């Protein structure tokens, strides 16, 4: 007999690190204690989306959304909600700046404006149960493809839908498949690129954790369309939960005969294995990725000729691209093509991170404005601070300033604005972020991750890093800006793969939109955001200081002196510019200049 209440607990990596597994155990224990085990079922799911507020519970059928749960909340929650039927307001979501909670998930702005295709099963199924995926029309698209469609028909459907690669470059998926289908060499391969490494990005991990079968089904359909019989799931070792879930899902699919020989009695054979990458960022680049699978040093290769695996044709698509495929076959290319903009169809998953209230995972129709994502879905900037920039596309992308907030999110528009769609990282920055320091951070990342094959990338990123570090240390020189630009363009032109070609983007786009900040660092030795330690001093305002001694007590250097109710002063020789006094002061008397 089915239960009357299903408690969906998010067990993605984010929520687990916030204690979701303890919450689950406590729920099970309390439900048993109240004798409700026949009524209430606890279901582990993945990627509920509002990761910053985890651990998260969604109680169905009412759709009540609970967040930021602690172990001690659970006995009361079980007794009140599940035994007495009274949802617990104090554990519900309260929108930023408001007082009353919103009980239902579907009324919360964060969820209301999203459109789920790739994440269609998030929060609805247990990723470890293949039957639940099947109950949500799972594997129907594969059945349809292999039993009633030709390879050409499948490819035509994907082409007509307008689906483009979600890994970043946006290459039309149907065209990629068609060229591999026409390649006479055999055997052929399909690969899922889940080597997600951008700082602040976790879309691919979340999809694999929440709905591994959607990726497997998409890959099987792609394999059928191009004539491949084996595939690799390239997943990084740093994602242990995703590895575990996809491995279990593959085993379950094999048991049902959805992977293996003669799938659905159609004569089509396909099997899949997990390849664990060691976590090098460059392996997200397709030629480096295949080199890694082949057991070689993961260095990008020259293209053309087209990327091959063991010298045979291979289709490499990103996790999100594969997850879209079954839906397109089930619902039709026409339906899919009606979502989005003229050239960018469907939806895109973004991981929203940085200075944003609702940090988490969102899926939105293409064409939505950045403003809608940041303010309506993301809930704006914490503590009422000003928006400064949003960084899309990770270390390969660029910074977009407030003046571009009304830009609509599609591949072309983001490119034109000097950024890129990328795989979907979206880092929001407030007024207190120093753009020079941010550019330095991203260049430090790519410098670290450069495989070293091309001098322009290996040495060029180091040269950029040295200049940017100098600026942050107050040692910027006239001519540095021009040097950065010249270097950036040279690195872009002379590097072989996407990593090198795009690594100057954070520098070049911040120079374009925030040139004044660079100038202030060089000419005035001033950091406008008040962040670069070498360029700032902390002082206490004579007018505002009330002599409460809060800052003096907290200062780790004992650099602040002054009697109670008298003006305090900071000893600049002792001050390490840690900013503790700034956070401690309640009278806004600490000044950063």
């Amino acid at each position, binding site marked *: 007999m089915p239960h*009357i209440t299903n408690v969906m607990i998010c067990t993605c990596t984010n929520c687990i690190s916030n204690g979701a597994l303890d919450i689950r155990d406590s729920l099970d224990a309390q439900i048993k204690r109240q004798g409700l085990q026949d009524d209430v*079922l606890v279901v582990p799911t993945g990627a509920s989306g509002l990761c910053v507020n985890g651990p998260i519970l969604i109680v169905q059928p009412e759709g009540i959304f609970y967040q930021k749960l602690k172990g001690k909340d659970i006995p009361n929650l079980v007794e009140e909600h599940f*035994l*007495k*039927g009274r949802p617990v307001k104090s554990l519900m979501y309260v929108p930023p700046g408001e007082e009353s909670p919103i009980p239902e998930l579907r009324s919360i702005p964060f969820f209301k404006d999203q459109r789920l295709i790739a994440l269609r099963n998030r929060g*609805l199924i247990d990723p470890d149960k293949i039957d639940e995926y099947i*109950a949500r029309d799972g594997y129907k698209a594969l059945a349809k493809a292999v039993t009633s469609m030709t390879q050409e028909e499948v490819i035509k459907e994907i082409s007509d839908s307008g689906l483009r690669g979600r890994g970043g470059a946006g290459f039309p998926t149907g065209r990629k498949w068609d060229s591999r289908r026409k390649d006479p060499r055999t055997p052929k391969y399909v690969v899922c690129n889940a080597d997600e490494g951008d700082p602040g990005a976790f879309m691919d991990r979340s999809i694999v954790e929440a709905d591994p079968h959607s990726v497997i089904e998409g890959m099987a359909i792609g394999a059928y369309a191009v004539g491949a019989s084996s595939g690799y799931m390239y997943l990084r070792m740093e994602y242990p939960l995703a590895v575990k879930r996809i491995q279990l899902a593959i085993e379950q699919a094999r048991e049902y005969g959805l992977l293996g020989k003669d799938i659905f009695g159609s004569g089509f054979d396909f099997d899949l294995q997990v390849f664990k990458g060691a976590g090098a960022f460059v392996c997200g680049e397709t030629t480096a990725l295949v080199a890694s699978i082949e057991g070689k040093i993961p260095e990008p290769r020259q293209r053309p000729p087209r990327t091959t695996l063991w010298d045979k044709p291979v289709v490499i698509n990103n996790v999100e691209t594969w997850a879209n495929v079954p839906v397109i076959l089930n619902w039709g290319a026409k339906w899919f093509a009606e979502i989005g903009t003229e050239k960018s169809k469907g939806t895109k998953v973004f991981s929203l991170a940085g200075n944003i209230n609702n940090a988490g995972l969102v899926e939105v129709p293409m064409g939505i404005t950045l403003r809608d994502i940041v303010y309506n879905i993301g809930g704006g900037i914490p503590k009422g601070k000003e928006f400064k920039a949003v960084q899309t596309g990770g270390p390969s992308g660029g910074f977009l300033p407030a003046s571009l907030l009304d830009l609509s999110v599609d591949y072309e528009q983001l490119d034109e604005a000097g950024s890129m769609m990328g795989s979907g990282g979206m880092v929001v920055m407030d007024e207190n972020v120093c753009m020079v320091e941010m550019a330095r951070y991203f260049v430090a990342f790519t410098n670290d991750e450069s495989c070293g094959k091309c001098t322009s990338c290996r040495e060029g990123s180091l040269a950029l890093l040295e200049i940017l570090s100098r600026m942050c240390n107050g040692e910027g020189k006239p001519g540095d800006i021009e040097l950065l630009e010249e270097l950036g363009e040279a690195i872009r032109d002379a590097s072989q793969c996407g990593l090198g070609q795009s690594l100057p983007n954070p520098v070049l786009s911040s120079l374009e939109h925030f040139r004044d900040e660079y100038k202030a660092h060089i000419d005035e030795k001033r950091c406008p955001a008040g962040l670069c330690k070498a360029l700032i001093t902390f002082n206490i305002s004579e007018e505002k200081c009330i002599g409460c001694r809060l800052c003096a007590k907290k200062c780790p250097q004992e650099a602040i002196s002054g009697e109670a109710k008298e003006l305090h002063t900071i000893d600049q020789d002792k001050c390490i510019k840690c900013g503790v006094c700034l956070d401690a002061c309640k009278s806004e008397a600490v000044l950063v200049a």
Partner: protein
Amino acid sequence: MSKIKPEDLDKIGEKIKRTMLLREGSCRVKIIVHMGTCGIAAGARNVMKALMDEIEKAESKDILLTISSCAGLCSSEPMITIEEKDKPAVKYVELTAEKAKAIFAGHVLGGKIVNEYALAAGSERTL
């Protein structure tokens, strides 16, 4: 498990369809059993068990059974509310397992309000 055929997908789906409906929150009829302290004391749990059995027997896949708190008329518990799409909700009062079965047959499956046990159609306005 032997290899599955395309038509098996629907069979697997059917088996847990009601669970999935519950999670999606979509249904033709929603039955709410009021399970406040008053309701539980008056026997709401028996009413709920009876309804669960009936749903099972009828093999219906489009009915949601859920619980809620006290409906405000404690003296008339156990109570249930039946919600159908685009129709006013109906509240039934002073229920027993037997009455609940009759309401299930008449209203939920038959589509006719069982006047004998009904309190009123419609719900209070909220906000």
